[in-house]
């Protein structure tokens, strides 16, 4: 049940993102003051329009595109960087690893969202910078989980045997250790995905992320605050899209964890 709901919601979001140009009847950026603040069900605008007369459905669909794009980019970047650093830190137990893990500790001792926001305030706003800041704030989780896994996998007989037979360290690392920690990386990635999407929306909501008029769910919710008394739909639908996407990905992640790595705690 949970698994299928997860798959259905996630597929729905992916479909909305890919097919946005065909599903949307309007340009998400085109303003039309004559049509501003129409409620859901208005002719030609099934979900209504915003204060500038832009079609809400079109903006939601393009918003899905943006949210998933940011989610995929940050998950890939953090998994590669954090995974590799964790792999090396678990494999080579010398001082560089200790330093790395101290950096991880320091970074984990600071609220994730605030860290990403601070980086954005410093390096600047916009799509590229929010991917950068989320990745810079998020890689530590992989580094910690992967290092822990590597430390235990390294002790197993087949790794010891391969090492005794004279296999080089790099080959050992990628051939025998990496495939055995890969399930954890996948599980962490799936669980991180929704937190990245929600964090991006939160950061855009606070004004540090994707800037208007680009249709990002977070900045749409931020703008909706000024119209809460007259246009509830501007707050209801973007938030629902975000929550349903996060729900789908979470359910999928839970299912992946139960299947691949039931003991993992993230």
């Amino acid at each position, binding site marked *: 049940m949970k698994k299928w709901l997860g798959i259905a919601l996630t597929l729905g979001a992916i479909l909305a993102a890919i097919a946005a140009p065909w599903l949307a009847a309007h340009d998400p950026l085109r303003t039309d003051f004559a049509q501003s603040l129409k409620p859901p069900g208005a002719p030609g605008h099934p979900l209504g329009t915003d204060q500038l007369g832009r079609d809400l459905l079109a903006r939601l669909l393009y918003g899905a595109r943006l949210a998933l794009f940011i989610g995929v980019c940050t998950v890939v970047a953090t998994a590669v960087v954090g995974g590799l650093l964790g792999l090396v830190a678990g494999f080579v137990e010398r001082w560089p690893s200790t330093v790395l893990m101290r950096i991880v500790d*320091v970074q984990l*001792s*600071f609220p994730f*969202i*605030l860290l990403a926001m*601070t980086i954005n305030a*410093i390096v600047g706003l916009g799509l590229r910078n929010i991917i950068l800041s989320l990745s810079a704030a998020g890689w530590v989780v992989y580094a910690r989980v992967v290092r822990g896994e590597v430390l235990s996998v390294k002790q197993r007989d087949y790794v010891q045997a391969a090492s005794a037979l004279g296999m080089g360290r790099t080959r050992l690392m990628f051939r025998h250790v990496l495939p055995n920690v890969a399930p954890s990386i996948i599980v962490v990635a799936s669980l991180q995905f929704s937190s990245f999407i929600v964090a991006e929306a939160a950061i855009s909501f*606070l004004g540090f992320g994707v800037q208007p008029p680009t249709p990002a769910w977070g900045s749409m919710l931020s703008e909706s605050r000024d119209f809460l008394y007259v246009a509830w739909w501007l707050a209801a639908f973007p938030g629902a899209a975000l929550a349903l996407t*996060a729900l789908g990905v979470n*359910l999928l992640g839970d299912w992946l964890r139960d299947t691949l790595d039931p003991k993992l705690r993230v």
Partner: protein
Amino acid sequence: MRAYVVSRLAQTALVVFLSLSAVFFLVRLSGDPVLLFMPMDIQTKDVNEFRQRLGFNDPLPVQYARFVGGALRGDFGESLRYRRDALGLVLERLPATLLLAGTSLLLTVLVAIPLGVVSAVRRDSVLDHLGTISTVLGQATPGFWLGLLLIYLFSVQLRWLPTGGMGGLAHLVMPSVVLAAFYSARIARLTRSAVLEVLGEDYILTARAKGLAEGRVIGKHTLRNSAIPIVTLAGLEAGQILGGAVITETIFAWPGLGRLTVQALLNRDFPVVLAAVFFISLMYTLINLAVDLLYGWLDPRVRLR
């Protein structure tokens, strides 16, 4: 024990020092803080005078040394916007955040732990299923959206509660519920799985076999043994509540540290940012220390090193 606490406090100091240094250098590397703050049409002469006054013309190591020296004495400089002592501003806002975070934590513990325990003990009952659905939904619902929905329902439609600001008890209701919602969902889920795990242990079977009343089996044997993972997560989450406060305070115009930090970041008021970072990382690491000390009390098998 004392040696442990002392070494952990030293680590806390190190963590706070490193986070402050990281933010200091990031800010300086990213460009001229004066130009970032000044309006576009200002004259070069004025910019230079401002830079001279705030000491931005000195070499970076000198600025860093001055910053560290000041921070040690609790002096983070003057807020660029309010022209006031940055630390004073932060301290002024701290009680509001502590009130909000404390209420949310209390709410979380009062709701989440009983819900998790009942769900585990009455596994597969209607209550358990309802609990699972609400926790899964609670985890997926972004706090700032929940906040908007509550404002729409209770302030715009029903006119029961104020939309924001700080005042009486009514002002505290929505922000603390929003802040507590996400954490309650996580802690209720964890409590459920921790209790279920303990219920499968042999000593629970023994306790039941010797005819111990169910209330005592749960109250005395199960809860205490499932407390460790719950306390760990509750502790970690207590820190994350500080992060969540940033968003919640902004939605409800709650005059706390989180809102001050967001405004300081938007205004590029970096002395205030640094003072806020100082307090947030200090509180965060002290909470983690408190959690670790709690382990030793909950489970004497855990030796603190």
